[in-house]
């Protein structure tokens, strides 16, 4: 312990000196070489999401912090490469943590609460009477239990030969929308541009220079693909294009899900369409066929708890 502390102290002192000597005079010119560290800071998930989500990031440009380029690690090029996304913050941007919201309530037992008696209906008309929804709180779907033992994916008994649904090369919703005229014209040329492809390549480069502690792009992709297979998004839901669900996951070291809950529950607020979307996401995470999660077991600390963000917008072409 002491040894590490000493090393740490030494490095800090060294860094201080290096920075003192080596950093440019910040107040004199535009700090072009700020970016030298930016790769270090961009987390992979942000990075991979970047191309599709052109969400205007709050440009934190105005008060450029000096970036300590001479890391303890031997870094090859302190190149002042003016990349378009300057990320001066040292930390992976603390995204709007949905922390301050109601704790996961202590698991409402799925008790089969009795269906209240509907009013006696004297009229002998063929009317059927629907009673006022004796269901449990609509927002009470977070009752979750450990799916620690992944049930073996039994062959499903009634595997219908879904008519034509197998358009194998196409996976996302957009392509699920059929257009007979297009099928004709371009029956072959359907190798749709994988929107993820390009960023992936850039990213792997980035990953190579990252500290080991984070998940690599391919590790993240593995779990992404896994969950995508288990998510059947309610594409027809009214709020499909407006609402992204955050599922907060507590995972066991073996990759099984200990607990999953909707963390942006406050955004649902009794909207049944949003509730439907949220539930579909929760089912994807809890689906035994997606358990255990394909995450690197040796990096458990990285994913002991984490968040899945389910967003349909890309699929809907929004």
């Amino acid at each position, binding site marked *: 312990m002491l040894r590490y502390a000493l090393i740490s102290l030494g490095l800090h002192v060294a860094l201080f000196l290096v920075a003192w000597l080596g950093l440019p005079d910040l*107040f004199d010119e535009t700090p072009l070489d700020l970016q030298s560290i930016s790769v270090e800071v961009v987390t992979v998930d942000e990075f991979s999401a970047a191309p599709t989500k052109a969400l205007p990031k709050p440009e934190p440009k105005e008060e450029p912090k000096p970036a300590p380029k001479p890391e303890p690690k031997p870094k090859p090029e302190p190149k002042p490469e003016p990349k378009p996304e300057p990320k001066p913050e040292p930390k992976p941007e603390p995204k709007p943590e949905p922390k301050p919201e109601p704790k996961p309530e202590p698991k409402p037992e799925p008790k089969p609460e009795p269906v209240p008696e509907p009013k006696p209906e004297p009229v002998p008309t063929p009317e059927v009477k629907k009673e006022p929804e004796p269901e449990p709180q609509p927002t009470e779907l977070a009752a979750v239990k450990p799916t620690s033992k992944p049930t073996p994916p039994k062959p499903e008994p009634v595997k219908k030969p879904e008519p034509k649904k197998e358009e194998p090369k196409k996976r996302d919703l957009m392509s699920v929308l059929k257009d007979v005229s297009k099928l004709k014209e371009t029956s072959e040329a359907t190798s749709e541009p994988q929107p993820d492809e390009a960023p992936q390549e850039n990213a792997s480069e980035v990953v190579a220079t990252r500290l080991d502690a984070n998940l690599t792009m391919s590790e993240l992709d593995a779990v992404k693909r896994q969950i995508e297979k288990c998510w059947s998004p309610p594409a027809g839901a009214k709020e499909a294009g407006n609402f992204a669900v955050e599922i907060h996951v507590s995972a066991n070291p073996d990759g099984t899900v200990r607990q999953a809950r909707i963390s942006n529950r406050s955004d649902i607020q009794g909207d049944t369409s949003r509730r439907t979307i949220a539930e579909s996401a929760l089912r994807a995470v809890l689906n035994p066929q997606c358990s255990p999660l394909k995450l690197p077991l040796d990096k458990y600390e990285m994913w002991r708890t984490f968040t899945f963000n389910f967003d349909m917008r890309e699929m809907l072409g929004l």
Partner: protein
Amino acid sequence: MTIKTNAIKRFWVTRSVAALCALAVVAGLNVGFMSPAQAELRIDITRGELKPMPIAVTRFPGEGVAETEIGQNLTQVIAADLERSGLFSPIDEKAFIQSAASLAVNPNFAEWRAINAQALVNGRVVTEPNGLLRVEFRLWDVLAETQMSGVAYRTQPNNWRRIAHKIADEIYKRITGETGYFDTRVVYVSESGPADNRTKRLAIMDQDGANHRFLSDGRFLVLNPRFSPTAQEVVYMSYFNDKPRVYVLDIDSGELELLGDFPGMTFAPRFAPDGNSVVMSQALDGNSEIYGLDLRTREKRQLTRHPAVDTSPSYSPDGSRIAFNSDRSGAQQLYVMNADGSGAQRISFGGGRYATPVWSPRGDLIAFTKSEGGRYYIGVMRPDGSGERLLAEGYLVEGPTWAPNGRVLMYYRQHPSRDGTKDRYRLYSIDLTGYNEREIVTPADGSDPAWSPLIP
């Protein structure tokens, strides 16, 4: 001198500030990497796979023989409804592990997960002292282990089918987030006889083909039936006494009413969304124009005035606009105008001819038929003409009609025979995605379907 001191001072200050900042940055990084409380991993899921949801619909037990039988039938109808939607895949009950008796107490979710069920439906059937049937059902989320819905219905025992459809609607709504469409009916034109002497009768059936019955006896040709969006009424055109006229039929009472005895021929009627008026075409002296007719006052209003043929009007669900087709540009194309007839704008610009626009009850799309190169298509486009997509194709596909939730279309298809004398006409439904095309089995040939609103 002062300049120099200032420079030195500034040098020291900025150097120190910079170095300290660097230190702070590294300290931040250290904290980040050492503690698990670093900004949490976040994984974006931006794709999914539209797969039918595996659902276990268990038999609804009943006390007596009659109830048991009804329970079993209910289960079958519910499962069939869900399956036909293409969004669910009901699991064969042979695979079920948990016994009905134990399920009645509480679902054992692990046993349902073991057979891959994601949702579970159970219920029971009771006959009440007054003879009415009471059906309770519950929908469970097997993975989240929660009850998603629980409703009880009461009705005459012979009306159990509607309860099954209502339960299927509730399941559909709860899981997809959209209103269901199972508790609906379809009117259509049932055809029989040789091609040169067809008998065309108005017929009605449940959306799944059950409870089929005829509404007219076939003495007079019927065409273009359209459901009222607000009542169990149908407007259609009939050649009563060889005069083509538009009639309104009350399905339950059988009451028939002629809609104004206009000169010329009236055809292609369709209700306004409030059910209080009808738009239709009137052909007179070789020209066809669109008229609105108030059903209460019988006041007629001419909406188009153009030497071209304007026909097939269809209201937007908010009643503010009307889609129609016209050949005023040469070929038949789709147009949208304000409900008072002003501001007509062409919205279809593709090749071929476009006809029969039908505005979706959801308002977001207009279905149409298109013919080009000897083929027919059923397609949809947005009301501004963008996003055209062709869903079905054939020798002849015609007469699109929307399910009340705007998610499914029904239409008819002509299957040509070799010699042209035994062509078959069949009704089909297709999902808005363009998949899951299903035939609606009818006793004889069928054409011109019209989907009812949800039965109240």
